[in-house]
């Protein structure tokens, strides 16, 4: 069971790496922030899997804190003024 949890975590990490493509290619800043949302949720899932694979209950609290990271980052992002399209 532990090895299955570990392999599921690895699969999610590969998922996350593939998400980098959108981060690189994303035409606008809004797409790059979506990659951040994907990273936030995927990292939370990996943390939870690791918490039970290695019997570390503290990791669930880390995941709880990490969930807010993506939300706060996107709230901070929304405050940015729009580019006026000069560059």
């Amino acid at each position, binding site marked *: *069971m532990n090895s299955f949890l570990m392999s*599921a975590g690895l699969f999610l990490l590969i*998922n996350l790496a593939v998400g980098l493509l959108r981060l690189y290619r994303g035409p606008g800043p809004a797409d790059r922030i979506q990659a951040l949302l*994907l990273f936030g949720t995927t990292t*939370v899932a990996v943390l939870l899997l690791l918490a039970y694979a290695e019997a570390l209950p503290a990791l669930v609290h880390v995941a709880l804190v990490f*969930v807010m990271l*993506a*939300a706060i980052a*996107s709230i901070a992002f929304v405050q940015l003024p729009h580019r006026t399209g000069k560059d």
Partner: protein
Amino acid sequence: MSTWLAIALILIGCSFFLAGTVGLLRFPDTHSRLHALTKADNLGLGFICAGLAVHDGSLTGTIHLLFVWALAMMAATVSAFLIARWADEEPEH
């Protein structure tokens, strides 16, 4: 029996994550991409939490997982709405 259920739920969760990532890469428009991303991610996280809760079995662990998932749902909803609105105001470059 419960381990098989946990494995099945976690597999379903991983498939939703895969759908979310593929959706993020393949969809043409920002809004459709955002739609695919938030739906698939939260469902994926929900199934993984359910699978882990079945695997764990203790009540406190399940409640912790429920908190994580509920917070993730709220956080993703607010973020998706804000980003969609921000993308609307973006001058078409």
